[in-house]
């Protein structure tokens, strides 16, 4: 099994006729993903290598039964694309687009969440259930089917970690990049809950970064609710301190947000933290053996 997407997921690609959209549509189909429709406003009626193109997501859903969408449109138009997908009844919207202003994303999420739509991203590499379905831009070949769930705020760092896992024979149930922006839809906690309930996920790798307090909250959740082994990695231990967000930033962060603080929180929750990417595989093997 896997979470969120599998061989039955039917994907509509928003922005399918664009540069990135058409390139990655090909990549997704080569991986075996059911790409049932594309949407580009004003270009309805086209056929893109066998994928029918519609003017609106509503029409695409009506005609093809698409239940997931992936968004490759540019930042100025991406919020409207997410709204359109949600109002058309799409359950899972994967927003690859980067550069969406954070406040606008806050507005979008406030509007679409009550509609029952789950947004992954924005600024996300997407997600993949190896061997079943890939939605996004990650290189499919580095993944292997298996029982490790991977959740990450990064893009390419996730590929690195997945590649490490695969090299050690640790296949993945589902790998999700939740996106690196300040305001995102699906968060660590949401994904951890799904991995917890997925019988085929036996261990979890959590890849964090400096900034925010999502890793600290994830650590608290894992220590209280998860019975599955988890391995952490935090990027940015040696990063220069970010530009100060005035006093307000200091007041709300209350000292959280540094790599050291995140590592401490994870270790306090009993989660082994890899010091270098190459440690992730061995640590996970060790944890699975001990579990």
């Amino acid at each position, binding site marked *: 099994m896997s979470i969120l997407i599998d061989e039955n997921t039917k994907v509509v690609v928003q922005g399918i006729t664009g*540069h*990135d959209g058409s390139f990655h549509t090909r990549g997704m189909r080569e991986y075996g993903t059911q790409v049932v429709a594309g949407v580009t406003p004003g270009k309805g009626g086209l056929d893109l290598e066998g994928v029918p193109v519609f003017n609106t997501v509503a029409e695409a859903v009506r005609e093809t039964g698409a239940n997931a969408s992936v968004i490759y449109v540019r*930042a*100025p138009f991406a919020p409207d694309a997410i709204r359109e997908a949600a109002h058309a009844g799409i359950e899972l919207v994967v927003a690859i687009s*980067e*550069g*969406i*202003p*954070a*406040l*606008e994303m*806050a*507005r979008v*999420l*406030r509007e679409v969440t009550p509609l029952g739509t789950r947004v992954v991203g924005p600024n996300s*590499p997407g997600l993949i259930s190896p061997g079943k379905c890939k939605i996004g*831009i*990650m*290189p499919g070949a*580095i993944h292997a089917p298996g029982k490790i769930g991977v959740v*990450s*705020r*990064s*893009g*390419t*760092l*996730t*590929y*690195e970690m997945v*590649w490490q896992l695969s090299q050690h024979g640790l296949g993945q149930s589902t790998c999700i990049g939740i996106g*690196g922006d*300040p*305001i995102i839809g699906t968060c660590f906690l949401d994904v951890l809950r799904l991995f917890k309930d997925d019988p085929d996920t036996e261990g979890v790798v959590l*890849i964090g*970064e*400096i900034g*925010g*307090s999502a890793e600290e*909250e994830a650590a608290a959740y894992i220590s209280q609710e998860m019975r599955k082994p988890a391995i952490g*990695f935090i*990027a*940015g*231990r*040696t*990063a*220069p301190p970010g*530009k*100060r*967000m*005035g*006093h*307000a*930033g*200091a*007041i*709300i962060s*209350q000292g959280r947000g540094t790599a050291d603080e995140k590592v401490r929180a994870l270790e306090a929750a009993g989660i082994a933290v890899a010091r*270098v*990417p*190459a440690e992730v595989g061995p640590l996970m093997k060790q944890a699975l053996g001990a579990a």
Partner: protein
Amino acid sequence: MNVHEYQAKEIFGRHGIHVLEGRVVRTAAEARQAAAALGGPVVVKAQVHTGGRGKAGGIKLASGPEEAEAKATDILKLSIKGFPVRKLLVTPAVEIEHEYYVGAILDREDGLPLMMVSGEGGIDIEEVAAKTPEKIHKLHFDPDHGLRAFQARELAHKIEPNGRQALGIATLLVKLSKAFLAAGASLAEINPLVRCADGTFLALDAKLNLDDSEVALRKDLEALRDPDGSGGHTDKAREFGLSYIPLEGDIGCVVNGAGLAMATMDLVKHFGGDPANFLDIGGSSSPAKVVAALEILTADKHVRVILFNIFGGITRCDHVAEGIVAALEQTHIELPIVVRLTGTNEGRGREILEESGAAIFAGTMEEAVQKAVALAAGTEVKG
């Protein structure tokens, strides 16, 4: 993106917040003229993109034009946290009855903007927050409308017992929230907000941080960028869509993705090296971006080796390889280049580089970093 105090005040003022009339000057002579025009005692304030100006000697009271010129001369010699002072704001000095803190920020955990206020404003606000958090009052507000009038009153009555004065603060809070939203800001802060002897409220300082994504979409915000605010390298980086932060080390890093870039720097440190920079070439790369990245790094005289760590997704390894080859054709680069390429179009990328014979290959991130560290240390490395 940070904007200067005087720019923030201009924006806040446009939203009806009372700010002092002030003059932006670049020389001590201009500071003298400004003080003379304003009359009476003035405050001379360094305009730099960092906090802690007061403690660094960047804010001085002057009794009149002559003292203003002298103080300006001193401040213009300063470099505060690495930012040389190139502009000053000269404002009239005011009689202060009370100092408050008010600030709006985007709360990423709850996904909503947050207004924070305290009856004890001033430079020690962070200490107030740490030691007596109950003196900081917070309320989320609507990202479309800003703080509602009734929310503003609820906050204001908590920090000001006088009813009439609380209504004055409430009015200001609504305006601050609207300024925050209109600018698509990540932070809009007034500290201190002061109550003057006549009962009016005045933004004595002003801080505004903009969301880079919002700036990228709006010309009015882009126009606020200070060309003096940072070095020439980051301007070139921005032009090519690169995210670049110079550091002190000698290993120039070129990575795709912020997370992998940080992990690469961490690994450099782990193996005893010292990164010269953070440089993320971003998602959709092109050969031109890679050329620009190499130009920026080779301009940094500390750099002794260049390390590429590319895991292709949207980024295509062949584009990166083409960029390296093009850069080498355009300019003579003497520095060793260690390259790790994995992912999308990896095979083609390797082919291009192998044909040119320009780079030292590494199969993994660890191997690449180790080779780069050894090269920087002057050790021989085999390609």
